[in-house]
């Protein structure tokens, strides 16, 4: 029985992020330093292991011989740290204690360039008093911890093949997450935004999705509970790019739109975590504070000479309703740009379809119900364009068809109910080999075409 160390990876990443922002004794850092050992012990008890080994291979996290794609996307800081330490992974002993974790986070936040070799890194850890976190040699080294007897039978020294397309997508997502995370963290610290990086990553996304959005849309649905504003921003950027492409926007506008999606919530970096991550309803004062994030975000972006006006407008207007409601309160004479209204649609759609600590994910169908019933909330044309591009089953959605086959949506069809599906398993539920995967356009004029039976969320 395997157990996924997702939560532990999130804790490690968050610990590094928080330590970058706060001093070592800060309650936020201390909270993570204390909770990691507890969570680790609980995890190890459940998994029946004595220690947790997280391998790092080519910036991907590996656990028990399997790539952890989701955690790798949000855990780029951890893999980058491993690269700097010239190591192939981290072995966390069950007895690791909070002080060691604080030192671990401190080191990760301080180290700015790769060390010369692993021995130096190990010495550094010892120097910092970190005894219960061991550094593994790199994957190709025979001494790599992945081959230790502890994992005999579970790890045969060979990593499972990865799908090249998915891996490329993973790196793209990793960079997008990191771009947004860095932007948010930097804003909290008062640093200038790295707009060039956001532009570069947006360019990669626009280029990388020329073949379609299926792979990348699957990847970005990793539920990053602790940093969900980051994942949300990436997903909004993706949706906006998807819709923008369907509108045949030129590359420059598409790039601006993507950047606007990535950075639209940067104002949340200035909202206290206690409000931002409050699980229940916000009271009036908290809501007032929360609502300032739109204006703050726009001002942060406006202060940056390289930020486009679309990015500023995206941050400013993504909570503005088409009928003039929402926030920041708009005067009657204020104009609205179509692309900002499109971002608003993407923002709401993503927020409702995503998992949040305080809500379950809704299906696109339910979300559309909510959206169409809320008259005046959305620009009809923007919503229409969105519906045409995304449909009831967004690219990357996993479906069961009425004939029992299963597949992944590669593109929306002309009819929102009839997407194009890449069939991946047969009627008996057996997975088909990659060469037998085939696309079915459910909207094609052919007889006996199956319909969608169920959306797998």
């Amino acid at each position, binding site marked *: 029985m395997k157990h996924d160390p997702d939560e532990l990876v999130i804790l490690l990443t968050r610990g590094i992020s928080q330590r970058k922002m706060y001093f070592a004794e800060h309650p936020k850092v201390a909270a993570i330093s204390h909770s990691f050992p507890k969570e680790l012990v609980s995890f190890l008890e459940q998994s029946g292991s004595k220690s947790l080994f997280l391998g790092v291979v080519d910036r991907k996290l590996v656990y028990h011989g399997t790539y*952890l794609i989701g955690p790798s996307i949000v855990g780029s800081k951890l893999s980058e740290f491993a690269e700097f330490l010239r190591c192939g992974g981290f072995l966390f002993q069950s007895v690791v204690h909070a002080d060691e974790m604080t030192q671990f986070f401190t080191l990760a936040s301080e180290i700015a360039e790769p060390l010369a070799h692993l021995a130096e890194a190990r010495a550094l850890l010892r120097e910092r008093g970190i005894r219960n976190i061991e550094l593994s040699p790199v994957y190709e080294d025979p001494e790599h911890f992945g081959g230790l007897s502890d994992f005999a039978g579970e790890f045969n020294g060979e990593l499972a093949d990865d799908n090249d397309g998915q891996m490329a997508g993973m790196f793209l997502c990793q960079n997008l997450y990191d771009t947004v995370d860095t932007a948010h963290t930097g804003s909290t610290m008062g640093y200038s935004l790295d707009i060039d990086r956001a532009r570069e990553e947006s360019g990669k996304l626009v280029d990388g999705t020329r073949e379609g959005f299926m792979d990348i849309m699957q990847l970005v649905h990793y*539920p990053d509970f602790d940093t969900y504003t980051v994942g949300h921003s990436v997903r909004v950027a993706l949706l906006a790019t998807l819709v923008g492409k369907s509108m045949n926007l030129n590359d420059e506008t598409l790039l601006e739109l993507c950047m606007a999606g990535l950075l639209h919530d940067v104002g949340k970096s200035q909202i206290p975590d206690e409000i931002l991550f409050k*699980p229940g309803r916000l009271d009036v004062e908290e809501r007032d504070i929360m609502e300032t994030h739109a204006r703050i975000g726009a001002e942060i972006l*406006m202060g940056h000479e390289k930020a486009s006006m679309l990015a500023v407008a995206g941050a400013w207007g993504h909570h503005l309703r088409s009928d003039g409601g929402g926030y920041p309160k708009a005067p009657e004479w204020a104009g609205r740009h179509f692309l900002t209204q499109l971002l608003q649609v993407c923002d*709401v759609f993503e*927020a409702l379809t995503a998992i949040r600590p305080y809500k379950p994910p809704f299906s696109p169908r339910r979300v559309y119900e909510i959206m*169409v019933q*809320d008259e005046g909330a959305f620009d009809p044309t923007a919503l229409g364009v969105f519906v045409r591009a995304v449909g009831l089953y967004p690219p990357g959605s996993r479906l069961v068809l009425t004939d029992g086959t299963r597949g992944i949506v590669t593109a929306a069809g002309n009819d929102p109910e009839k997407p194009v599906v890449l069939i991946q398993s047969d009627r008996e539920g057996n997975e088909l080999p990659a060469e037998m995967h085939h696309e079915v356009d459910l909207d094609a004029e052919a007889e006996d075409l199956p319909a969608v039976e169920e959306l797998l969320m």
Partner: protein
Amino acid sequence: MLTKSPKSIALDEREGGGEQSPHARLLLSLDRLFKVGPYYPPGHAATRRVTSDFKNVMAHLLGQQDTLVFRMKAGVLHVQDEMLDDSWPGVLDFQTLLLQLGVDHLEIDGDASVEDLLTFVSRFLAFRNEVAGVKHFRHMKYDGLPPSVRIGEKQFRTGIALGSTGGEDQDQDGTFLLDEPEGLGGLDEILNEGADPGCVHGAETINEGIDAARESSADPTLDDARVVAAPPRLAENKKPVASGLGELIGGFESGQEQDIRSRALESVELMIQKLGRSKRSGRHADFLGTDTESAGERQTRTLQKMPGEQKDSPQEQPEKPKEVFLMSLPELRDALGEYAGKATEIEYGNEQDETEHLSIIFQMLMDKQPPDVLTSIERKLDLVFNRTLPPQEREVCVAGVQSLVTAEDEAARHRGLSLVLNRFRKARTESVIRLLDDVCERCHDESRNSLWPFVVNELLLGNDTDDLPCFHRLCLRAGEMDLEVMREQAPQLRKLPAMKKGLFSDDVLQPPLVELYPVFSVLLEAAHPGPIAVKLVRGLKLDPPGTIGESVMPLIDTYKHSYREFLVELLASGHRNRPPKSLLEIAGRVLANDLLALSPKRRGEEWVPGTIASLAEIPVPHAEKILKTITGRRFLFLINTWPKPCRNAARDTRKKIRLAALAAEAAREVAEDPDRAFTKLKSESDS
């Protein structure tokens, strides 16, 4: 937002008749009672009024009934079984209070006395204070209530269907305030320490349910939290856990050790809380004004498996509750089709549309902004203004400037308007004068006052005079302003480029535009009017206003502080046909001081005889003496120091003055004694 049941009474429905429903009035009067009651003594007029109002409304509502019953049903407040609309005044507050206190129902006797009602209110507020900030579950004691007011505490209901996807779950959202007790240790304690049989049976049943869930999941490591988060599987147990809960609670009621009971209750609450947690509606749902709970959706927090990671076997995947949809698929298809149809009706170019960007910039400028933001705004405006603005963008500019003028923060207003108008002017693609004219056209008086410095600044800079009618219209607007307002706003004007850097257009100052005389007058009032004074003197000499101006201005060679009073007065009244007395007096003083001081070289200038002649019109002190000097002064007793035309003019003027004096004297005598004056005149004439 509450979903209205058919039985619910909405205020708006009743308001059709122009009168509030008794239920709404009851809650309003109760709200007042809570707000006033505790703060005044029982006999006070305010308390009398609110209590009697409440009693009246209550009596009206009760009719033949004896007791008023407030009841919480599914988290919603009901009175006499009528569901209340939480948009009514007081409903939400009272509902929240009951939820906070864990009150299931509240009964108030129709004959409750004023004192009882006030006691009830103060006790309830005390209860609320008691639970405020409580982090751990504890049993509340609702003591001190009068007999006429009774409350029923919330009970754990035995009929909770754990597997239900229905929307009703009233035990949520802080009804019980707990921190996060991990696991279900409290149940084990009951079993270990030996308690009431009913209670033990209940706890056993729950634990059996959990074990069964563990077994059925084929996952021995399934923890308690995950078990309680998997309602469908629990619901499949033959022996319903819910009934076990009922027995457990029955045991509590029969009496238990307090600490065991508390811990057990924590365990039960944990389960209920976990179930309830999945039911909270999201913030975006709030934003959309949509009640996501009404759909009865519940989903546990499950991590989605990523491709490439280990996949759950079908047996491992928990059965997910079905989503409930409010629209049929064809209905949704139609609705979406309508939207998608709209999307095909227009073409999406990549054309530049800056209306929103301009709107945002204007809104940002309403507040104080850091320098980097202002610099960035300047750059962005330069890009926008670098082309001819489409009408809609120009419209936003006009409205934006108009809006900026009303900004409360004076510093922000000044900075914002300066910034926008500077960029607009520098772009030279649009007329800033026309923009300001349009803004003035729409502004109220007060806004026009605030805009005045910016208008004058642009007029002084004057590099935008292509549209002359518009330019003159704006000059008139600027000059028509009340002088006091101008004086108030002048300090702002001095901070703007024209006055600050002395950038004055010859179009405006050479000669000064008559429409702007009052403006110039105010500007000269300053102790140090600066370069504009020199420019004004030069301009006024080119085209002196009125006879006074014609007489005196040639005498003024350059600006001196001593001329300020005269120039101010001249500009304030210079365009009038009849100069005021005050101006005449000041002009007289200037002539008295400066005429004789004219250099011999200048005395030959053409204007001098005319100015000398003006002494007949202007009350110059010691005019006779001045004129006599002009006519009689000689150099070395031989050479006249004043040219002949000047002497002639002086001689004529002396005559005029003398005659005028005689005429004045005669007029005075006539006025005093007409007969005597006539006799005198006759005798003089005869002689």
